């Protein structure tokens, strides 16, 4: 079969990336040249969503202009092309997570849907009244609410690993919570509100000693570090495409084949069946059993392109670059009078949350926005974390592979403007 992309995709991104050249990288993201409120855009809201490189934009354009067709059903040329591209992206996702088999890669809308899928499919089949599910005090609402819904449905109990004042999990408390009633553990790999990198390998090992499966919410980890699901030995791993420079509306659920096979379907419909009669329906094999209906084909192919892009730059380089930015920003922000960093774990990635004495984070957000600086202000869908630190909200800066130290300087300048307005 011919190469999938018949429209030439610009290949600036393919040029030598041996050295991390952030200036060159920024050229792949035309949006970064935009001005907002007459100032150059400083985009520091990457934990909410990342910008898309031209490779992704061009891939979506090429798909819709030259290849658009449904997958897994047509016997015509275009459908075969679309199917090849779609399944090609699954292979890329398998490589991205170091999974052992493409059958373990399920396309979903995003991390939220992935967790809901596991809660409803695995949870309703294998978690019973009186059982316990463990999450942590730093979870995003999407890793709290699906388990609360399940608990109400089956009569299970939710247990929460507390955190210390630096925003680190209390592992001895986790050990205490683990018991023979524990039937599932679901924790964030990296906290979206605090930036904490959790000791997930240890969590998996401790849980497995009791035969308890573990889901890792990788929404804030996958963009920043190499994820190897086999090395982590987690049972499920979830992340969102739009936070790794791909389109919105597409994400990945990795699950160990053994578990996915034992789980009932999450949704019924086309593509997830092998034979339907009114008496009985036979479900399709993995991963299609969990992909009912026409999927987000363009999104899947676009995510494949995003993975290509990240691979071309290299995750090691991205991690090192972002670590440097985080350290630099922490150093620049810490001395500002009245500024308190929320989340001071030893291991952090991508996120810097802070509050400013006497100024609500919302007002910080509005003032810095007028300086062209885009940050997030609010509870970050992690209201229990806000309660833990006794703040209604925080201002959150989050980095992507294209950010620069000059942008951090721009942020610092904008924060001084906030202080000037509210001083």
């Amino acid at each position, binding site marked *: 079969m011919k190469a999938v992309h018949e429209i030439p995709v610009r290949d600036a991104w393919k040029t030598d990336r041996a050295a991390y050249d952030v200036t060159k990288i920024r050229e792949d993201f035309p949006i970064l040249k935009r001005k907002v*409120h*007459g100032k150059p855009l400083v985009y520091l809201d990457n934990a909410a969503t990342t910008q898309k490189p031209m490779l992704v934009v061009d891939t979506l354009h090429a798909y819709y202009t030259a290849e658009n067709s449904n997958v897994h059903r047509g016997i015509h040329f275009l459908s075969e092309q679309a199917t090849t591209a779609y399944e090609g992206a699954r292979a890329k996702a398998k490589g991205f997570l170091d999974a052992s088999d493409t059958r373990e890669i399920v396309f979903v809308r995003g991390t939220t849907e992935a967790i809901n899928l596991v809660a409803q499919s695995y949870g309703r089949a294998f978690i019973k009244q009186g059982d316990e599910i463990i999450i942590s005090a730093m979870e995003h609402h999407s890793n709290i609410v699906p388990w609360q819904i399940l608990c109400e449905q089956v009569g299970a109990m939710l247990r929460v690993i507390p955190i210390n004042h630096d925003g680190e999990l209390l592992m001895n408390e986790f050990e205490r919570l683990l018991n023979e009633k524990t039937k599932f553990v679901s924790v964030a790999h990296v906290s979206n509100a605090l930036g904490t990198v959790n000791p997930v390998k240890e969590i998996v090992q401790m849980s497995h000693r009791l035969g308890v499966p573990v889901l890792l919410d990788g929404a804030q980890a996958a963009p920043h570090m190499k994820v190897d699901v086999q090395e982590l030995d987690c049972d499920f791993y979830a992340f969102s495409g739009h936070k790794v420079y791909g389109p919105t509306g597409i994400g990945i659920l990795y699950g160990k084949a053994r578990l996915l096979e034992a789980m009932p379907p999450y949704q019924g419909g086309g593509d997830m069946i092998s034979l339907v009669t009114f008496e009985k329906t036979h479900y399709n094999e993995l991963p299609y059993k969990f992909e009912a209906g026409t999927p987000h084909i363009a999104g899947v192919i676009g995510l494949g392109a995003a993975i290509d892009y990240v691979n071309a730059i290299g995750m090691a380089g991205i991690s090192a670059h972002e670590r440097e930015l985080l350290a630099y920003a922490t150093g620049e922000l810490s001395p500002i009078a009245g500024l308190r960093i929320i989340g001071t774990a030893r291991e952090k990635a991508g996120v810097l949350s802070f509050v400013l004495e006497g*100024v*609500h*984070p*919302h*007002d910080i957000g*509005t*003032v810095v926005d*007028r300086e062209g600086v885009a940050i997030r*202000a*609010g*509870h970050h869908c992690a*209201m229990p974390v*806000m309660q833990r630190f006794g703040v*209604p*909200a925080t201002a959150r800066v989050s980095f992507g592979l294209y950010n620069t130290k000059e942008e951090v300087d721009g942020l610092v300048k904008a924060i001084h*403007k906030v202080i000037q*307005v*509210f001083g």
Partner: protein
Amino acid sequence: MSDISELYQEVILDHNKSPRNFRKLEDANRKADGYNPLCGDQITVYLKMEDGVIKEVAFQGSGCAISKASASMMTASVKGKTEIEAEQMFDEVHKMLTGELNPKAGLEKMGKLAALSGVCNFPARVKCASLSWHTLRAALKGEQGLASTE
């Protein structure tokens, strides 16, 4: 493009720093809680009503400068007003915040509340400014539960 000082006018910064009627009203006979789920602003509005007139009004809560100043200015402006007058003010404020008010004649009528007129150029902040008014309305109607800007 509107300047940041148009939003954070002196009057607003002043009400934010020293909010008026910022307390619990012990002898309130109406009360409502308001919540903006988007940003987590929380407010409780207390009313003491007598013969359809707002005799006393106070508020408590946490929120940004805009929501706090708006609540403070609201209490100052609705005290002594009848229920119907307060309802009319709600409508006018709502129009002002969404930029539907005649910039001259309309704004003049708003008196001190006109300081909040800059909010209409900051769409993300309209709900911050309207939360206290939604909560006031809920309290006037004696509604149970949580008032919301949604």
